[in-house]
């Protein structure tokens, strides 16, 4: 097992007028080369922030980040520029993440221009190659984003991420803004590119069906904390954390003959500002006890299946 990206006790806090917001708190996991790690959770759980901290779009508050075994938590700007060639991001909103005044070709080749290593001719050749790879028609080469539909824009966003042949791509809700028929096209494209180029993905989404479909491993987050992580199949077969169980049961199913037992959660996500120690899900959890208010630790409950919950064995009769 060789991991491409690893984070240990990663923290990201934001200072806000109301106090310190713990967006990512003590998160550890690793992503194997060529695999997809799904990060799933509801809004405000810190999943997007996590992706941004890893690729240094935001500075971390604590903990460490490793890329190909090397500690990249603190890097100078020259090193960072080199690193960024290998770590890219695809954003959720294909409308606001493209520069409206740049053509498709300019957008895709901008990273090449910045690198300074490509001649004009090489850049054009790269644009050809990438456009073919992401399925953008040659005639759209000089089109502007406003002339494209959402699916094509997202393809341009993917094309831009592929320039300079990165190893790692953070996909931040890349299909959430798209209609189902288009979203399926983009998901297939991402899978094909992974097979072809051996890419490693960190796939951030709130959509459990999508994350199950695309991921090899999954991390479930709640209010900045990692609550459960395991291989994708295992997680959906044996969700162990009460939050994961509720989350999976909440997804509406198209199977009209087997309506599943739904675990309804009371209340809503509490504030991540100055959180109390202990499990942040405790307030909504049906199994809350005194011990839940103490700091919790990630524990391997089943092989390769880690959970942060002091009552997990008891709840699942393990």
């Amino acid at each position, binding site marked *: 097992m060789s991991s491409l990206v690893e984070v240990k006790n990663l923290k990201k806090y934001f200072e806000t007028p109301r106090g310190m917001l713990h967006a990512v708190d003590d998160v550890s996991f690793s992503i194997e080369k060529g695999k997809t790690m799904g990060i799933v959770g*509801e*809004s405000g759980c810190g999943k997007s922030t996590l992706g941004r901290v890893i690729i240094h779009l935001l500075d971390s508050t604590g903990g460490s980040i490793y890329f190909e075994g090397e500690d990249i938590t603190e890097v100078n700007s020259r090193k960072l520029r080199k690193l960024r060639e290998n770590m890219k991001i695809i954003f959720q909103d294909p409308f606001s993440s493209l520069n409206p005044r740049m053509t498709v070709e300019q957008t895709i080749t901008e990273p090449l221009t910045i690198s300074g290593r490509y001649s004009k001719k090489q850049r054009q050749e790269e644009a050809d190659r990438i456009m073919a790879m992401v399925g953008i028609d040659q005639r759209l080469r000089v089109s502007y984003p406003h002339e494209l*539909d959402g*699916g094509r824009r997202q393809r341009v966003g993917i094309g831009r991420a592929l320039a300079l042949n990165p190893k790692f791509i953070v996909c931040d809700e890349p299909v959430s803004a798209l*209609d*189902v*028929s*288009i*979203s*399926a*096209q983009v*998901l*297939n494209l991402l*899978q094909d590119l992974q097979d072809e180029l051996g890419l490693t993905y960190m796939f951030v989404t*709130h959509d*459990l*069906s*999508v994350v*199950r*479909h*695309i991921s090899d491993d999954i991390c479930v987050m709640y209010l900045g904390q990692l609550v459960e992580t395991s291989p994708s199949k295992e997680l*959906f077969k044996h969700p162990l954390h009460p939050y994961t169980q*509720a*989350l*999976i*049961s*909440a*997804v*509406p*199913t*198209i*199977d*009209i003959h087997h*309506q599943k037992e*739904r675990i*309804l*959660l009371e209340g*809503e*996500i509490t504030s991540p500002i100055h959180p109390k120690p202990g499990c942040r899900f405790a307030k909504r959890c049906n199994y809350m006890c005194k011990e839940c208010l103490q700091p919790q630790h990630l524990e391997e409950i089943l092989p390769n299946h880690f959970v942060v919950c002091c009552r997990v064995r008891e709840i699942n009769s393990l």
Partner: protein
Amino acid sequence: MMMSKNDTFLSVRDLVVEYTAEGQVIHAVNGVSFDLERGKTFGLVGETGAGKTSTARAILRILPDPPAKIRGGEIILDGEDLLKISEKEMRKIRGRKVSMIFQDPMTALNPIMKVGEQISEVIKMHNDIPWREANERAVKMLERVGIPGDRSEEYPHQFSGGMKQRVVIAMALACSPELLLADEPTTALDVTIQAQVLEMINKLKKDFNTSMIMISHNLGVVAEVCDDLAVIYAGEIVELGSKEAVFDHPAHPYTLGLFGAVPSLAEEKDRLNPISGLPPDPSHLPEGCHFNPRCPYAQEQCLKEKIPLREIGPGHFCRCIRVTEKEGKYVILG
């Protein structure tokens, strides 16, 4: 044309809605017809721009005119054609007999008005009662949807997204409407909150015996709350029937495409089967079947002729000439 049962509460007939923009005519709704029985829930499923919201807004007559115009059709609610009555009469129906839950709770509420007031305003408008009583009812309504009554003095920004949507629902149900139009009521919400809100809508619907039209792009949501549904594409119903008919025996190539394109929680799919191509430009709809450019089964006739909605099974309608029944299944013969 179909199930004209005695208990039909709402009947939409050949509804046509057009928008005019920069001299171009956008064909948003092109002859939509369906019936809704009292106490039942009817689902309208489709992708962005399919005409779902325009249909719902036409029923309430709240389409922005200009640019939108209802060009034809009938909307018969309880024996009365809503398209023929005056605006004054319509105003009595809105919020009282028919009300709507909008998709985005953030923009559906007035940010500078206390939530309690926003609810009592509806109640006061339709009932000849003093303000004090209207306020009391508003507080009761908030409690009904699971918000503590003392929060009625708060402003929308003090509520979370899920709570705001509850306020919107409380407002929609304040005058016990007989018909509720729910336009993607849970799309802006997280799944655990969505589950809470759907559960609540289902319960309130039962308590008040409300009929409902549920608009959604999410097949799962429709499966959970609807009795009957229509799949809508390019402003036309392409498939219509009971939930069982459509989910167990989907027939139209577009419906099949939708099912193939959604990743499933229950089963392993190596690859999704997306529908190729893009939805058509509603100002230049393709001739013949509007789905023909994306349809793997399209043949000569599909490119030229207007395809009628036909009954392929009891109460199960499909707008496709190529679907035939074979051994209890709908198939398209090659």
